[in-house]
């Protein structure tokens, strides 16, 4: 353990260099620079609002803000896992030459995307002010889903980056997986019509949906424990908490078990 901490200290600088590199290079060649992070969810929100606000249910929650909450959290999860998945393979040549703790690669990808996600929350604040959404003290509870999503994404990123070393087609499979996750996250529709059907179980098993529900609750001035009408009080919190912790530990374990074999495959 002592060695682990020493190593962490020694390579802390590398970790932040990797994070910095991701962010810097992403926006270097674009004219809009970091504003692109803000513009992209904003445009998605506008289009989805225009298309779906009449078609799919009208609840009490402000629809643009409702969409944006889901879209931002899903966007983070999807971007971060996609980059993390490729991270070990991308640094393959270096893995064979210089020793660095290999978990740096997926974890730095997750963290750099998290920073961009936090920056993009500016859009949410702007739209909330524009739409005059009432803010209460419950807004601070939004920190809980925000931390849990970081933990969950790290876990998923570690697992994906590990297996992508051995199976190259995981990249394509994950694109499909992400699409399925997106449709079951209720980003641009409301679950009212589905909640009494037999398919309501979908919303009990998707941990990302649980996180989005918690986040929306906090944004709209409710406790994060509030039910979405499908499950009982507090379900989403406990489910997301347990899932995130388990998947994080599993990710660490899988990565640790397989990391010595990376060099034979990259």
């Amino acid at each position, binding site marked *: 353990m002592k*060695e682990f901490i020493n190593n962490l200290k020694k*390579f802390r600088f590398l970790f932040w260099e990797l994070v910095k590199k991701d962010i810097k290079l992403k926006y270097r060649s674009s004219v809009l620079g970091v504003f692109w992070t803000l513009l992209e969810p904003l445009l998605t929100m506008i289009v989805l609002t225009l298309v779906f606000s009449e078609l799919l249910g009208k609840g009490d929650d402000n629809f643009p803000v409702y969409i944006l909450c889901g879209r931002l959290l899903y966007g983070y999860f999807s971007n971060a896992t996609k980059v993390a998945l490729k991270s070990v393979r991308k640094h393959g040549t270096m893995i064979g030459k210089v020793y*660095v703790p290999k978990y740096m690669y997926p974890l730095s990808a997750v963290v750099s995307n998290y920073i961009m996600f936090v920056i993009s929350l500016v859009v949410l604040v702007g739209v909330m002010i524009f739409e005059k959404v009432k803010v209460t003290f419950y807004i601070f509870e939004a920190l809980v889903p925000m931390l849990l999503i970081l933990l969950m994404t790290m876990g998923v990123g570690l697992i994906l980056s590990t297996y992508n070393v051995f199976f190259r087609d995981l990249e394509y499979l994950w694109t499909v997986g992400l699409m399925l996750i997106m449709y079951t996250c209720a980003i641009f529709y409301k679950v009212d019509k589905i909640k009494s059907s037999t398919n309501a179980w979908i919303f009990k098993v998707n941990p990302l949906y649980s996180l989005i529900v918690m986040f929306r609750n906090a944004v709209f001035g409710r406790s994060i424990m509030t039910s979405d009408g499908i499950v009982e009080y507090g379900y989403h919190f406990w489910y997301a908490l347990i899932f995130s912790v388990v998947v994080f530990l599993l990710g660490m374990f899988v990565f*640790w078990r397989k990391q010595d074999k990376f060099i034979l495959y990259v």
Partner: protein
Amino acid sequence: MEDISKNPALDPKDTPDALVTPAEGGPADSTVNAETVAPAPKKKKKKKKLPPKVIVVENLGVRFRIQEQKVDSLKEYFVRLVKRRLNYKEFWALKDVNLKIRKGDRVGILGLNGAGKSTLLKCIAGVLKPTEGTVTVKGNIVPLLELGAGFDKDYTGAENIYFYGSMLGYSKAFIRERFNEIVEFSELGSFINVPVKNYSSGMKARLGFSIATVVDPEILILDEVLSVGDAKFRKKSSKKLEKMMKKGVTVLFVSHSSDQVLTFCNKAIILDHGSVVASGKAEKICAQYEEMISDKN
């Protein structure tokens, strides 16, 4: 969890001086494998105090599993799993390798393609975990990579100095302090603010060399990289290497060519099919290697 980062090779706290064990260097060594122990017993009598061992390789073995047909997609994996056709062929890239390298030794590793030279270096560098045996390394290792592998092509030279430096385990303060020295030595001038993708291969190599050698490593790994840059820079880099060698840096130098080994090394070993077939003074071993090559032809 601590095993994720387990690598004794890069522990900065280890200094070679802390582990002087003169008793170990005695005749016990030669009984293990008289031919593979690098320092010749003759030399021992002349100098009573031998420098400390910085690299000790004991009974090292590396086994690879070669799939007869490479399976690297999930689909294929499952198809073969169902058909029960996941055949592996095993072979030992290294077997029973014993080495002791002392501080200041410059060891040339000779061998034909596939003899296990790179595998041995990877084990010493700590990036490949041996199947059996142990590798103990005291001091920090810096590998000199070919043509600036490890640079990010979209980053400028200056940014790459920080990035690449952090990969080698340097601290931020250290790089900032030596930044000018690196730029100066690389002779890149104003090109330092240009993305590396626009560099010529010589420029990349110069920058890589400058970053790797700024630290005064205790152990330097050279994997056939000495032919970098133009003649002028080659001279300069050779001079820098010589200066480092005078300071007592330990060098591991991999090559096919015995000429290069002769100019740089005082000791040499020959690897063949994963085992050390000869070791000792560079001159003797190089001659033996030349013989070996001509025999095979």
